[in-house]
């Protein structure tokens, strides 16, 4: 049925494939530009997160007029805009460390329990339409004596 199609002319097919590759390269370049813009925007979102935490601290210290809610709404709105273009946060807290998505920022040593569990998130990671945009920076559990090889060290 498709004997008379492109495969009957490999040279033409190669030419078309090379055009497609060039187009894919343009898409890739465009993607990198989008990534770069989003990286800048995510930095602002990070600051909003820190600000939310700071406002909560202020409230805890008894500062009544801390603009906690306003900043929270601003943060949520920013996430909403990002979600609209396919940028979604990576779930990290409570998950098993996944080096494809998470980067260890620090560890908390515990006497028992599970090793390599994400206890906290220092910086939220994001994907763009399913593709990794930025890894999460996380705090993971380290079980004391959990690494047998450590005892082998000199």
């Amino acid at each position, binding site marked *: 049925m498709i004997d008379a199609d492109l495969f009957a002319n490999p*040279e033409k*097919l190669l030419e*078309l494939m090379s055009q497609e590759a060039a187009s894919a390269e343009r898409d890739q370049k465009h993607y990198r530009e989008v990534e770069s813009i989003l990286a800048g925007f995510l930095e602002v979102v990070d600051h909003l997160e820190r600000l939310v935490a*700071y406002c909560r601290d202020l409230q805890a210290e008894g500062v009544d007029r801390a603009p906690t809610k306003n900043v929270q709404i601003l943060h949520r709105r920013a996430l909403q805009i990002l979600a609209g273009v396919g940028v979604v946060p990576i779930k990290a807290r409570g998950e098993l460390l996944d080096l494809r998505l998470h980067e260890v920022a620090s560890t908390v040593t515990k006497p028992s329990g599970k090793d390599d569990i994400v206890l906290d998130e220092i910086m939220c990671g994001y994907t763009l339409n399913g593709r990794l945009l930025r890894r999460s920076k996380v705090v993971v559990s380290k079980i004391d004596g959990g690494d047998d090889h450590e*005892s082998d060290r000199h």
Partner: protein
Amino acid sequence: MKAIGIDLGTTNSLMAVGGGETRILVNRENESLTPSVVSYRKKRKTNEGEIVVGRQARSYAAKDPVNTIFSIKRLMGSLYGEEQLEDIAKKVSYRLADPPEDSDDQGVKVLLGGKPYTPVEISALILEKLKRDAELALGEPVTHAVITVPAYFQERQREATRKAGELAGLKVLKIIDEPTAAAVFFGADKEKERHRVLVYDLGGGTFDISIIQMVSGQYQVLEVSGNTWLGGDDFDKMVVQRMINWLIDEEDYDPSKDRRFLGVAKEKAEELKKALTVQDSAEIIAPMITKTEDGQLLDIEMEITREAFEEDIQPFVDQTIQLTEEVLARQNLTTEDITRVLLVGGSTAVPLVQNTVSELFGAEKVRKHVNPMECVALGAAILTEYYELTDEGATDAANKSTLMEVTAMHLGIAAVKGDHTDEFVPIIPKNTNYPLSEPKRRTFELAEENQKILRVPVYEGLNPNASLNTLQGSIEFPLPEGLQATTPVEISFNYDANRVLTVTVHVVGTDIVKKERLRRGRVVQQPKKQESLADDWREELQPAIRAMQHFLGTYGDYIDEENRQEIGEALALGEDALANENRVAGDKAVRLLQHKLIGSGVASQLFMAERVMQGADMEATRELARGVANLRSAYEAGDTSKVNSLSNALRAQVALQIAKSSSIGRVEDQKDLKGYVRERESKG
């Protein structure tokens, strides 16, 4: 068989492919830079250890710094007891294995997961990842490589790098100096020109300078020098210091002990540096960059002019210029003698660097267009084209572009001089061009009457005491009875393009001749073309429509919504064209349908792979089937990044197969190749 160029860096490594479309290859994480980092991680479920390499290893470093190996390049070829080793050991978080007490092998080892590894083995793990990722990107096995090393690397370090490549399953075509590779990239399209090129390589932490003679595509390294502790990181430190001073002045707070601040400040410094390459001043805006002891969040909002930045970094730039002038003086050259200056390394983007170098040599000579971060790997990739790959290694195909390099140290032997029994006598002096046209000879004599054994230890180095240099190997053999102390012994060294040192010892007046190789090595080229045709529009349109209908029916599940819509529009256009006999619309529909057939993402890759399998040989069919199965399962699992890389790999496999199937029609091209090979024979 495929060869790649590898820039095996201290912090990051890059890989590139040559062969007509020289380009950087991205790794499986879709990044061009692969961190030169190896880590050991214990799997939680099985309790077995696993080695992770690259970005993932760097991401794991904070969890287990002791089991994360950074900057292994600094330890390549290192021996226990060397002075610099202590310095390095202090700066790294991982541990060195204890030196062996009763072994001749004094090579340094690092501990990873409690086990000792040589720097060669660690580097091999990095190279193995690069090889695998390149295979994924290219869709075919990578078998050979040209690997770059710093110009100051000694022979032992170069040999260690070669071994690492071999251990990673690569046939190492050549170990090449980084600046030479950059010059090759620069000279790739200027083979008929004659230049004396100065490569000014200012990276993040190191400065290298080389002078290279380039004549008709031949490269000869005249001189190499540099400073391993000078680079763009010094520029960043000056900016960070300004940020600290600003906070002290404005907020009366010194953040210099705040690690988070220092990390963010370094990032901001890099951003500023970039902004100041195009602007006269730039702002640093760093909200909540530090927190005081009483919990107050502090911001930085400051402006730094290019003038102030340049004032700060001027001493570093001056140092590079001083080193450059010294190199020129050693070669008895003036700036007039340099015809091109090649700027390599990210830090050469700084205008003060460019301007200062331009003032010294003249702006017209300074080349800035070469991508300073990638040109080393790209140059290495171009060099792979000069070899013809074989299963055993490679043959020197071309003579098309030969590299002549220069020895960085003396190569010589330990001998007796007066009472001194550890005299280092150079036979090939430092800065000698190689490959040598003929061996370098020197005549010695036996040290004592009736000497029973002759021992010739070969060293590389600059110290007059042989044992303080680097031992390359030793030739030892028994002597017959009765030789006089004055019996001449001729020792000759030959040094070839692969840095193989062949030492010949001839006891003159006897038939005793001992020859030993103390090192070894070796290398493609494949032009290609394609043309298109056009015919009766109906004869093209009808099969195109049928093919697309088949495509939709078989691969519809793998087509995304956007492509599906465009395919629908193209089919409608085609059918209208047939119904209305509209040739223009018909031609357009053919083009659209053809592009959609091969440009609809995963569905197209599967379609083409299954289609080319019909004409492929057994092995290729197996490979393609594996690629198809992997891609299908990644797609079904929703693993987007894996789908992207597998899809690219399959595309490359398909292209290769199609190129094979069309090769019958390229007899004319093959004639061109024959012409090329004949030229080499006439030279030979």
